[in-house]
């Protein structure tokens, strides 16, 4: 982290003014810009997602895809009943995903509530290659004052979080108060310091695909390093069409600004087959550059075990079973 604090919020606002071509960033300017984005063709988008899901990925490509998918997982536990033991178990699983095959890659990060970051850090150490992501800003509802949200974020960063997963104020977004959402993201980004910021849009609550597109652009405009579908607490969570829209958004954002933003679908992706469909979409929609855990993540817990089962099947030549793999979130009470 640089010792001279950079006022990124000011930067975000200044950049937004530049991009929008206005001299002062107002809600009506944001509204005009976001509502000027092309509408999403719902039927076309769903058909495209379905078509991408039919690709058949075999043998060597599948092996590669499975290892890539494992390396992209944010291994997650976000329960009210999370104990330090469960978080330690989750971290142990991240360090050694498959005790019978140490060549299995580690997931990208563990994702926990802010108060569990210190516990996770103590188990993971600093050189494991596994990051710690903390949800913040009154996750999952986001219904708290700005001061509380910022304090939540700062505490998680101070405790050692490498990444912050924030939720946007969906109420404000749906009510059309885009400037408020923009300011919140920009403020939280400032509070993150060097931690990367993932902006959870909770697409399951945004009603339309047009809103998903607008929320994606708004999040990137305000300085999010990642756009993320969902908290995992609302159904539907990460669907393929929604992810396709987000991938289009980061692709177009790169064209417009030269900056790359990551994408993280979270919730509801449980099987290797599903994960591979998402990877196909990443490659086809955003491009090969995003096939890297710096730019694409899966928010999941049970997905890891299914990937490990498929991996064992490919290594061993026969089907494996749950008895040969540890729990997805083993508890070490």
């Amino acid at each position: 982290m640089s010792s001279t604090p950079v006022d990124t919020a000011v930067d975000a606002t200044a950049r937004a003014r530049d991009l929008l071509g206005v001299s002062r960033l107002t809600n009506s300017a944001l509204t005009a810009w976001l509502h000027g984005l092309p509408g999403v063709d719902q039927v076309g988008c769903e058909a495209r997602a379905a078509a991408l899901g039919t690709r058949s990925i075999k043998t060597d490509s599948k092996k590669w895809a499975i290892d890539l998918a494992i390396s992209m997982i944010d291994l997650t536990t976000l329960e009210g009943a999370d104990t330090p033991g469960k978080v330690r178990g989750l971290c142990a699983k991240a360090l050694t995903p498959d005790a019978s095959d140490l060549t299995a890659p580690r997931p990208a990060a563990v994702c926990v509530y802010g108060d569990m970051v210190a516990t996770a850090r103590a188990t993971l150490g600093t050189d494991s290659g596994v990051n710690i992501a903390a949800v913040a800003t009154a996750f999952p509802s986001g219904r708290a004052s700005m001061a509380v949200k910022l304090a939540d974020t700062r505490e998680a960063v101070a405790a050692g979080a490498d990444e912050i997963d924030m939720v946007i104020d969906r109420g404000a977004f749906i009510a059309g108060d885009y400037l408020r959402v923009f300011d919140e993201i920009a403020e939280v980004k400032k509070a993150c310091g060097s931690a990367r910021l993932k902006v959870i849009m909770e697409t399951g609550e945004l009603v339309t695909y047009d809103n998903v597109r607008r929320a994606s652009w708004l999040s990137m405009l305000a300085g999010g390093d990642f756009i993320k579908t969902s908290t995992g607490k609302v159904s539907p969570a990460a669907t393929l069409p929604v992810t396709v829209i987000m991938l289009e958004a980061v692709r177009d954002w790169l064209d417009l600004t030269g900056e790359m933003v990551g994408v993280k679908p979270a919730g509801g992706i449980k099987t290797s087959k599903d994960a591979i469909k998402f990877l196909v979409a990443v490659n086809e929609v955003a491009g090969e550059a995003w096939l890297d855990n710096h730019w694409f993540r899966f928010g999941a817990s049970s997905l890891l075990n299914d990937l490990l089962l498929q991996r064992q099947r490919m290594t061993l030549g026969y089907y494996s079973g749950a008895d040969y793999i540890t729990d997805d979130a083993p508890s070490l009470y």
Partner: protein
Amino acid sequence: MSRVEVKKTYKLYVGGAFPRSESGRSYEVTDSKGRFLANAALGSRKDARDAVVAARKAQAGWAGATAYNRGQVLYRVAEVMESRKAQFVEEVRAAEGLNPTRAAAAVDAAIDRWVWYAGWSDKFTQVLGGLNPVAGPYFNISAPEPTGVVAVLAPQSSSLLGLVSVVAPVIVSGNTAVVVTSFNRPIPAITLAEALATSDVPGGVVNLVTGNPAEMAPWLASHRDVNAIDLTGVADTDIAWAELERAAANNLKRVRRPLIVDGSAVEPDWTLSPGLNRIESYLETKTVWHPKGK
């Protein structure tokens, strides 16, 4: 004007649903004289895998049901079959080339076999388990428990009686079954699936995959999430079943060998009273010590 014939293309029975084969394949099923009967789904190794997943998912709930309840469910299968008896008789007759009287006898025996096993559901534990005498102030109790997911290679010849005789003893104790049906005579098994689906047997407890056992058996034998395998169906085929036994050793699966007569695997006489032997093949014994007190 004559009516257009309704040609049937049957599907698999997996997890309580009737999916097509993942492979999209089917094959023609003929009667004993080679006349076309229907198309059946030609199951693949991935169908077998999906069936294992469904069986595993259903196993805890089925084993957790009371023995009394499992008995009722098995009896209900007999009831449903009884009301579709005419269809079963016709299909067994066509598949096995039996005369109507013999076919009816086979169907009756198959229905009675469900009733017979239903009766054993809450009794086999008393016979196969018990109190062991030990030198100390303890009760030492052995209780048989289901082993888990059982892969069954159903008999190739006896398309209904043989099938029921290998499936009922697997599920009566709380196991779930992945059954590869008779390759050339799958129609009675498909109708049994329809009977199971409309009885009270929970989805996934019995999964019936039509197709070639030579293709699917090696994958089931080596599958680490399968706890036991019944090799009855290798009789009168050229399947190298010693290889299956070797693959099964990998995760210490229980293996029930086919009946061997004069060095080759043959189908047993299914009309004989079955005894508890088949139930016993798919059980694990749990032994507990309990202080006796005064």
